[in-house]
């Protein structure tokens, strides 16, 4: 049988139909849900989860193309103060890719990873601590309501509770900290988790009915 361009277009049109995409979402979702709740269809559900991960891997290629397109465009347009960085990105990307692909270069790859990539990643991660404290400092300047004051007070107690020097000096802080963590905090987190779970159920039903299409690159607007 000869596959014509027209046939391919027809298949494409069927795949793009709202009903097809909803079915592609619904069938695996029901199988995985059934397995989670009852244990029925465990093997099929596991296979489907595996397929999803495998399909996501194919997307790396798309990501690579997007990355190249973006940086090549920046270099081509000589965007002020940025095109030099794009050269560094592309050279690093190609160099690490080649080193990973060439046989017997594992030691060089490991060396670059341990001495270049890891320190850079550690440095970027350190920003989190810095920003967490600056955000807390900003919040201190924004105390305009009782709720914010309670939040700031609880944060200060939480900070002191986690600092061993503070709990050594004032042992009562340990009791207060444990109470805040186990009683009001735990109760609030449980309530939030129930709310989030119900939100997910609502989104599931909306997707099942084809009302939610953001995951297809469309919106219901």
């Amino acid at each position: 049988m000869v596959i014509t361009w027209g046939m391919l277009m027809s298949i494409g049109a069927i795949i793009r139909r709202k009903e097809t995409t909803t079915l592609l979402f619904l069938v695996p979702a029901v199988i995985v849900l059934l397995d989670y709740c009852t244990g029925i269809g465990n093997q099929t559900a596991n296979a489907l989860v595996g397929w999803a991960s495998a399909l996501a891997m194919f997307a790396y290629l798309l990501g690579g193309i997007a990355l190249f397109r973006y940086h090549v465009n920046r270099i081509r347009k000589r965007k002020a103060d940025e095109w030099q960085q794009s050269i560094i990105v592309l050279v690093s990307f190609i160099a690490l890719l080649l080193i990973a692909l060439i046989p017997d270069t594992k030691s060089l790859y490991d060396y670059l990873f341990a001495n270049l990539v890891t320190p850079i990643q550690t440095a970027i991660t350190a920003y989190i601590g810095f920003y967490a404290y600056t955000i807390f400092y900003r919040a201190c300047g924004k105390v305009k309501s009782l709720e914010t004051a309670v939040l700031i007070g609880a944060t200060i107690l939480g900070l002191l509770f986690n600092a061993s020097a503070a709990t050594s000096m004032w042992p009562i802080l340990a009791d207060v900290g444990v109470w805040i963590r186990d009683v009001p905090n735990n109760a609030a987190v449980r309530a939030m988790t129930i709310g989030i779970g119900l939100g997910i159920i609502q989104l599931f039903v909306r997707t099942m009915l084809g009302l939610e299409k953001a995951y297809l690159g469309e919106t219901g607007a």
Partner: protein
Amino acid sequence: MLLILIALVFFAIRKASQGKVPKIRSFPAIEAIPEAIGRAAEMGKPIHMSSGFAGLHDASAPMTIAGLAILSHVAEEAARRGVPMRYTVALSHLVPVVEELMKSACARAGRPEMYNPDTIYYVGETQNAFMAAAMGFIYRERPAASFLFGATFYETVTVLGSAAVVGAFQIAGTPRVFYQPYLITTCDYTLLLDELYAAAAALTKKPQDLGSIAGLDYSKFLSLIFIALGTILSTAGLAWWNALLRW
């Protein structure tokens, strides 16, 4: 229980599509989106958007879907006003989805020429690269507004923190429990916890979508009844109830 909750949402959507449309309160965070983009248009500066370091392939998918729905609304508003955008993404499978989303948002705004593939900046699959790219853009371009909606992880701290430093108008929302304090302390408007799901549904103002929000409220009410009933029965120490809980 799950089936009952699903049935409740179904029932609410069906009721709304039959004409009994529920009244839903407005979401200040959604109402403020045009204001934030208008500010960017007046200042002649771009806006920054992101749905965080999560995709459609794991348990965070529902949050990402809700985040993308709101970001599409942001993109449409930005295209309408001719405001340049930047969407930072760290998961390759989101690239084609966001491309389509942006393209259709620009088309809906009547400005298809506003779509530029370079708007979407894929940074690689690591969270640190994502944080560095987002912070770099925010400090270099000093966007007038920053939007962060979805399943956000510890990049929340750096994105919100750097946007606060440059004085960007910030609107953000995530159901992730541990990042709620960061949202409250840095953003001008927020969508806390399950509000993100409700806001995503409320964007279109279609009866079915509004019905699904009412369904969410019904299910919350039912859960509260079950919690109260469970507390009373557990406190009473009834043998059959304790046996049922152990089962």
